[in-house]
């Protein structure tokens, strides 16, 4: 029995099979409509989440399965002090697979070690969010046809953003990826990541302004720059516009560059960009459902 705790749990070859399956699901949805009939997904969300929870639930319903669960800790037995280990043992009796989000880092791993059903980490604090990374990779593969040989700009809060860190770790396994990190000095990508890139001899650049590198990008992965991350208000006001993507900046981009964003978007991508054919962030949400469907099938070892 397998679980998914980190995007690196799967080899590149295993990810290829997963993405092949996700692409087949995209093309032939009706074929999978009853694949999980009689199976139940336990959607155990110890903290609120809209997109991830609904994406998992939608994935299971698309497969003809059922969903049980809770959407915040106060409505679960955790509020009575039950441990994650005990909860998963109980859930294992009710469901066939579990997607767990927990504010504490490592909680899904504890659950997996005690579980008799596959557990998917649906986000554990600031640690991992593997299905977001799988979504990002599938989006790249589906829209470009491959995951290799491109320049990706990662923009915004690169210091605290777990989606960015996971994506970098996942992308370094593919050939000829060039990274450009675009962030204010205060929110630069952590040194353990740049050390890892140096060690693997993977090219990267660090810049402050988005405009200067825009024409070179094949992908632009936007994240939010949060006000509370800055030491003072002056710096925030001075820098925030550098990291807001608008029509003006899009004029500098290649015609086939694609914009990705893990969402929720606040103001870092101006709504005027939404109609640009290069805006791929809502398609990305759709790919999130396909990849979760493929993941559920793979972990349940169901073949259609």
């Amino acid at each position: 029995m397998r679980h998914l705790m980190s995007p690196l749990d799967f080899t590149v070859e295993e990810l290829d099979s997963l993405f092949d399956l996700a692409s087949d699901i995209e093309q032939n949805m009706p074929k999978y409509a009853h694949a999980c009939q009689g199976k139940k997904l336990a959607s155990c969300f110890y903290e609120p989440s809209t997109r991830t929870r609904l994406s998992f639930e939608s994935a299971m319903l698309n497969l003809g399965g059922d969903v049980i669960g809770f959407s915040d800790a106060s409505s679960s037995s955790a509020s009575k002090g039950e441990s994650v280990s005990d909860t998963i043992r109980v859930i294992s009796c009710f469901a066939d697979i579990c997607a767990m989000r927990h504010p504490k880092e490592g909680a899904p791993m504890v659950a997996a070690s005690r579980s008799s059903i596959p557990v998917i980490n649906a986000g554990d604090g600031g640690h991992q969010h593997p299905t977001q990374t799988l979504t990002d990779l599938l989006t790249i593969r589906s829209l470009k046809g491959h995951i290799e040989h491109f320049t990706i700009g990662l923009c915004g809060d690169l210091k605290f953003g777990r989606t960015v860190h996971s994506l970098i770790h996942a992308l370094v396994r593919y050939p000829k990826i060039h990274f450009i990190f675009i962030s204010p000095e205060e929110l630069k990508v952590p040194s353990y990541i740049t050390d890892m890139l140096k060690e693997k001899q993977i090219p990267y650049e660090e810049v402050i302004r988005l405009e200067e590198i825009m024409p070179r990008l094949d992908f632009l992965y936007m994240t939010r720059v949060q006000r509370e991350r800055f030491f003072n208000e002056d710096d925030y006001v001075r820098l925030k516009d550098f990291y807001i993507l608008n029509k003006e900046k899009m004029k500098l981009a290649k015609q086939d560059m694609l914009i990705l964003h893990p969402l929720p978007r606040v103001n870092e991508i101006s709504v005027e960009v939404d109609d640009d054919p290069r805006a791929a962030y809502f398609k990305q949400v759709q790919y999130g459902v396909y990849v979760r469907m493929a993941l559920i099938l793979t972990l349940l070892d169901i073949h259609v």
Partner: protein
Amino acid sequence: MLNVGKIEEGFVLDHIAAGKSLSIYHHLHLDKLDCTVAIIKNARSNKMGKKDILKVECDINTLNLDVLAFIDHNITVNVIKDGEIVDKKELVLPKEIRDVIKCRNPRCITSIEQELPHIFVLADEKKEIYRCKYCEEKCRERF
């Protein structure tokens, strides 16, 4: 110069970084053993300038070498029998240590679930970096 007598059976931990012997004494739980222990602090050393030495008279099997290797794998472990050194054990960094140190990350699951063992795994052997098995927080304590 202070003289500490020979031991008949047990071990001598040599080349301990000066000032670290008491920390090792506690982590090896030597305080719980009913045996003779000599703690020598700031002994002169050609190699290190100053060093600490621990002499423990007990059954050699009571020593947890993993813990010792985690604390400092440069320590020399001399095994003593009949008053003579019969073996020098080489310390290698353990792949995993359990309940030796606690994860200090307040967001780690171990911060709320008391019954969980605190496990650190060797993430980078070259840089001697251990990370919490659950949250991957880097271990900052190296004694």
